[in-house]
């Protein structure tokens, strides 16, 4: 990993279109400004990792008859709830 030392208000440039600027250093917190092209997404790493992990958890392999049954069973209680909410709507 490349390590650079920067002070407040100093920046680094990545490639020719990404700029990362240290705005403020406050105790253990660092405020960072990022200028990047619109098509590049910028996320806090721990949030992104959380989403990745949950996506992996959420995977349901192609559903064969057995799995439809399994899914149906595990969701059947929801259906009752949905139906009871619907009745109360009326």
């Amino acid at each position, binding site marked *: 990993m490349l390590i650079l030392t920067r002070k407040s208000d100093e920046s680094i440039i990545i490639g020719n279109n990404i700029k990362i600027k240290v705005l403020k250093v406050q105790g253990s917190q660092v405020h960072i400004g990022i200028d990047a092209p619109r098509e590049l997404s910028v996320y806090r790493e721990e949030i992104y990792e959380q989403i990745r992990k*949950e996506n992996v958890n959420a995977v349901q392999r192609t559903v064969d008859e057995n799995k439809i049954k399994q899914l149906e069973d595990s969701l059947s209680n929801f259906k009752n709830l949905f139906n009871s*909410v619907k009745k*109360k709507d009326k």
Partner: protein
Amino acid sequence: MKIRRDLVASSWNENVEASSYPKKVASLLNDKVVFNFPDGIPAFENSQKFIIILNEKIKPFVYLKSLDIDDLGFVCIDPFLIYPEYSINIPGKDLSVLGLKDAGAALILSMVTVEKDPKDTTANMLAPIVINMDNFTGRQVILEENYPVRFRIWEGMEAIEKNKKP
């Protein structure tokens, strides 16, 4: 772009059981329509083509199936159905990728993690799937709002039921 339940209310079908999706999108939802996810979704970046399968047996859940990766699919649900107060702001970056200009054209789905005990089954409210039904482009949007990644659907439904009591 703000998206709340009432912003899509005019296209909302009153009959929750018969169709839990806004009318505008319900007519377009079938496994012939291929949705393009230009960036895939986190952890599955190579999967860029998806179809939505409506299955009576798992309604009101739908099945978002990858056409690029065998055996990849997700059970999803309309988040407004399980949490009516859900209100999200889609960041400009995501809007431009989606080409989304009209909130009414947005289909919002939350990915569901199905657990053995239905009470433990959760929906991802922090990173919904947003699909622009005008051009069939989709993306998992990571919101700036403080919504849970694991929202217990059961508890959400119980809260709705409680609120309906006179």
